[in-house]
């Protein structure tokens, strides 16, 4: 089974984000980056499928120079090789533009399965995988917690709202977007980190992939959310704050 996992590098979850001077995006200098969380689950699912059925796991990523550590992390966890699309201004593309880049890199690989996380932690659009399927002409399913290879193709467990699930059968090759929590994530071992150094990383530029990247949707402005609710912040020592809170809950909100 040849599995391609499309991953993204995003600002670290706890990073303090500041809006940039043009109010078009966030200030990227000094920011720490990490592998997008649901993409980590997609990679884990791919690695487990490979352990069961053999084959190859290829990670695919697009971004500027800083994506290096994220590629090495994926390789150290067990991916066999990587395809890195050098794209300095990924943020200027819309979801279709990004998916076109990824699809152009995936096509010549003819994978049996394409996985990606269900959404990125920065833009949170949750569209890349579904658009990829459309561009590749493959069937897809989203919010997947479990993947099983069958003789006919794939059987997957899809998450629905409010605690419901659904099983879906689909032929391979297919594109699946993976929801977090389906598996336990592995850590890279020392051996894995060592091995990662000699694994192949194929570099390709966005220009070489020659896709139409003119956006149809533009992010014009980034702003802090306006406060809609007046939140009473209780300060002081932990003891004072706790006492003040209980007081408020009892006599102001009357819920204790």
């Amino acid at each position, binding site marked *: 089974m040849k599995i391609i996992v499309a991953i993204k590098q995003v600002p670290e*979850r706890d990073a303090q984000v500041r*809006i940039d001077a043009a109010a078009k995006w*966030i200030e990227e200098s000094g920011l720490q980056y990490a592998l997008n969380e649901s993409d980590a689950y997609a990679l884990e699912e791919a690695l487990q499928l490979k352990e069961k059925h053999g084959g190859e796991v290829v990670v695919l990523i697009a971004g500027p120079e800083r994506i290096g550590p994220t590629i090495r992390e994926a390789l150290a966890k067990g991916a066999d090789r990587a395809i890195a699309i050098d794209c300095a201004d990924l943020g200027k593309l819309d*979801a279709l533009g990004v998916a076109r880049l990824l699809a152009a890199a995936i096509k010549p690989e003819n994978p049996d399965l394409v996985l990606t996380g269900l959404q990125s932690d*920065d*833009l*949170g*659009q*949750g*569209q890349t995988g*579904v*658009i990829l399927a*459309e*561009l590749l002409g493959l*069937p*897809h*399913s*989203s*919010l997947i917690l479990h993947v099983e290879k069958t003789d006919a193709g794939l059987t997957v467990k*899809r*998450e*629905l*709202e*409010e*605690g*419901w*699930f659904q*099983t*879906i*059968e*689909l*032929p391979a090759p297919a594109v699946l977007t993976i*929801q*977090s*929590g389906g598996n336990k994530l592995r850590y890279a071992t020392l051996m894995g980190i060592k091995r990662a150094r000699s694994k192949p990383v194929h570099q390709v530029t966005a220009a070489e992939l020659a896709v139409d990247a003119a*956006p*149809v*949707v533009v*992010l*014009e*402005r*980034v702003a*802090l*959310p306006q406060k809609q*609710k007046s*939140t*009473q*912040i*209780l*300060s002081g020592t*932990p*003891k004072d704050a*706790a006492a003040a*809170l*209980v007081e*408020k*809950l009892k006599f102001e*909100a009357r*819920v*204790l």
Partner: protein
Amino acid sequence: MSGIWVVLEEREGRIGRISWEAVVAGQKLAALTGLAVNAVVIGAQTDTLAAEVAAKTLGNVVRVEHPLLAAYTADGFTLALQQFIEKERPAYVIFPHTYQVRDYAPALAARLGQVLIGDVTAIGEGPVFTRQLMQGRLNGSYRHTSDGPCLISVQAGAFRAEELAAAATAAAEVTVFSPSIDPAQIRTKPSERFRGAAQTVDLTAAQMIVGVGRGIKDADKLPMVQELATALGAELGASRPICDNGWLPMERQIGSSGQTISPKLYIALGISGAIQHLVGIKGSQCVVAINKDPDAPIFEAADYGIVGDLAELVPVLTEAVKAAAQQ
């Protein structure tokens, strides 16, 4: 190009609340653009759904109907709506941002050479569409720049279903649109939906809930949280990452993929407040947030907040609650 079309979604045989919210978003957009709002229902048999929509006299209703649309599939819905949109040439198509819409609307948009502006929370002059970025820490304003149809989906709770206004016109015209779909074009085979493990915890009815999130850092801090819950007589709930890690069972998850709660008091400990969690706590009467990050979006949703370290705050809060109970 003709007007604004809202694609309504069926929930247990009726139009779901979030779909009415999408109609309100459509009416907001109509006020800005001067266009008329119309509705689409889709399925194998849509007469009762269409009647439910028509009764509100919002505008015209189209029943997109085909036997192969009986069960939702991304292939079926994408094909049917693609054909409808190519015929009708709407200026705007609005969807409720449900798991189902997330599964097909991006592909539908791509097939039309468009990009869905998903999870919209506000619509302003332009029109400019607001959606959250960076897990709710920032808002982004998006503009559609192509001349094709503009597809958007609206976030649950962002628009108020109560503001639904009847159109000035008389009775709505209901028509049927029959897409052509070949069985071979539907590549996925869905099962009936099912519940996970037996639900033994019903958070939906709990009056007091203490929710715990990623900020707890370590599973061995859970007893400390349980003590607070016990002192309050509260149920323990969690945000998704805690259940993903297996620290608490999935049935204690609060949010769009878990349970929707409406307690008297909800205390969120170390929960940053991603939108998936916030939609699950909207019905809470009083929300308390305790988090070390003063910029965490959970404070937006809270009546009372304390910025600080959980390990220090939770034990003293437990003591304060116990002391108050003895008074």
